[in-house]
């Protein structure tokens, strides 16, 4: 009898997780049927932060590229959207895609420059580029210069699908816009997670883990670390740009300081990833929920809340560097998005043959 070995990445928990994830997406997609407008807006916030966190995790957790300059891509994606909507009269929804493309275009020279730098230099270098982008955009008079601008009323009014949604749910146009933005955010977040998971399970993805663990060793077995870094950096920039466009489409008002804020779009995102667990897909999901929970609980305490957030980030890094998900999976061995391949079957029965 020949032993039946097979190589799989699946675990019982992961099969369950897949079904649960699909159900959750359906449930969330139907949220406009049962959720209030406030809840929809909260979910929008959670989903967009989750997207940003997944992309930063891809960069730093898997790619080893600790960037402090992701706000450059949020800002440029948002401003590209405002630019083509205000100046070109493009519909805001497809303009989100242009936001992603603009971020991609900015990412190419950024990578050329930043990949010459290592470690701390890389982190600071990306931050400086984000500052340059902010100061550059502040010179762009037709989108409001340093003070910023709003999306024109008629562009918002004529936005595709809004009318249909308004009729479908029998709500006003502004609520319909929130629903549309929410659906887009859900699609973006789900697509991001599925895409990153798929990427990590390919041969390239495994190579990525190898590069993260040891650049030298990975190179010696033929992994092209340079190409992987480019792939990861550009993917993250594109996704971050999409999220930036979408976030500011929903906000309908923009300024360079807000769109290129290192605190909002990089510091908090890093906290989310690290509080959750860096280098896993589950981590940012847990992290964003904790982040949102803290924010809602402590919303009345203003800057105390932010101070506490900073201190929590410090405490997690010092005392539980693998984050909350790290603690959970260490205890339970749970893996919802397994990436490591395991040999199953055969092993115990093979003696009979």
């Amino acid at each position, binding site marked *: 009898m020949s032993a039946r070995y097979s190589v799989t990445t699946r675990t019982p928990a992961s099969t369950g997780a897949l079904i649960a994830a699909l159900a959750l997406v359906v449930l969330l997609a139907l949220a406009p049927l049962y959720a209030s407008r406030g809840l929809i807006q909260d979910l929008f916030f959670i989903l967009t932060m989750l997207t940003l966190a997944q992309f930063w995790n891809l960069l730093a957790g898997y790619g080893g590229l600790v960037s402090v300059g992701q706000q450059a891509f949020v800002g440029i994606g948002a401003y590209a959207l405002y630019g083509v909507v205000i100046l070109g009269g493009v519909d805001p929804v497809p303009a989100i895609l242009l936001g992603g493309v603009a971020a991609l275009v900015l990412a190419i020279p950024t990578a050329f*420059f930043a990949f*010459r730098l290592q470690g701390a230099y890389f*982190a600071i270098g990306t931050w400086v580029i984000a500052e340059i982008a902010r100061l550059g955009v502040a*010179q762009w008079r037709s989108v409001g210069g340093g003070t910023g601008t709003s999306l024109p009323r008629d562009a918002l009014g004529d936005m595709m699908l809004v009318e249909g949604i308004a009729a479908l749910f029998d709500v006003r146009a502004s609520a319909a816009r929130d629903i549309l933005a929410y659906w887009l955010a859900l699609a973006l977040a789900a697509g991001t997670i599925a895409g990153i998971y798929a990427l990590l399970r390919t041969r390239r993805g495994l190579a990525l883990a190898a590069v993260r663990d040891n650049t030298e060793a990975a190179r010696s077995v033929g992994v092209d670390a340079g190409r992987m870094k480019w792939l990861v950096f550009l993917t993250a920039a594109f996704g971050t740009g999409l999220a930036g466009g979408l976030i500011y489409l929903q906000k309908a008002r923009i300024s360079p300081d807000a769109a290129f804020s290192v605190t909002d779009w990089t510091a908090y995102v890093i906290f989310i990833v690290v509080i959750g667990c860096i280098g896993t897909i589950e981590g940012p999901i847990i992290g964003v929920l904790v982040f949102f929970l803290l924010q809602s609980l402590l919303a009345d305490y*203003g*800057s105390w809340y932010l101070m506490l957030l*900073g201190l929590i980030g410090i405490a997690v890094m010092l005392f539980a560097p693998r984050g909350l998900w790290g603690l959970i999976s260490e205890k339970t061995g749970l893996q919802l998005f397994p990436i490591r391949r395991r040999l199953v079957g055969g092993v115990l029965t093979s003696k009979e043959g």
Partner: protein
Amino acid sequence: MIWVDTILQGVLLGGLYALFAAGLSLVFGIMRLVNLAHGDLIVFGAYLILVIVSALGLHPVVGALLAAPLMFCLGWVLQKAVLNRTLGDDILPPLLVTFGLSIAIQNGLLEGFSADSQRLSMGALETASVAVGPVSLGVLPLLTFGSAVAVIVALNQVMYRTAIGRAFRATSDDPVTASLMGIRPDRVFATATALAMLVVTVAALYLGTRANFDPAIGPARLIYAFEAVIIGGLGSLWGTLAGGIVIGVAQTVGAAINPEWQILAGHVAFLVVLLLRPRGLFPRGQ
């Protein structure tokens, strides 16, 4: 002639940036620690001086003298209790912890002092100037530059002429072997950060007297400081001064062309230097 003036003003501004950067350069050079809270610590120092000055009715310089030992101890405790645990090959822990610290300090100050901008008053000194040939230079900028040079001379003396400086360099080379020689790396690092906080106090004095400050301006100072350190080359304190001057001159020249380009020009100069010389102008060793 106007250009001579612009460049001289830029050099003097560079002195301020070098002061922002000197403490960072020391810490970064000795333990490769990226302290993202450095700018906020300078701002914190400025508020500490402000509190002392307004509570006791003292001159800001005396206030800074009183603040210095407090800042020294703060640096020691910070390094010993928190930052030492983040050191290692991975840059994420120090980055995240100092990011957290930065946000905690900013919001703590915001809660304590509101977002209103503040200033340390030096009285008549603020507007005094001396004529050097055809250009007139402010006394305060000259003092700043002089202080930057003095700080760097002093740090170099400490680094190359004293036992603690020897321990700094040995621990930076190889902490395990240093501990075999009876050195406690955690202590050495704590001393280095404490020393850096003395420099931060000097920087805070000039930050507060040269312009208005508020709780949110730390990160921008951090970027200037880092640019100066990286332009100068890791571990070279004179290089840090040169780096500060490069940023300062680029900013004043940029501002002379178009006032809105001041900050942008400084960042662009940083990128250009780094593209041409990725290890900075005066890298140590090799």
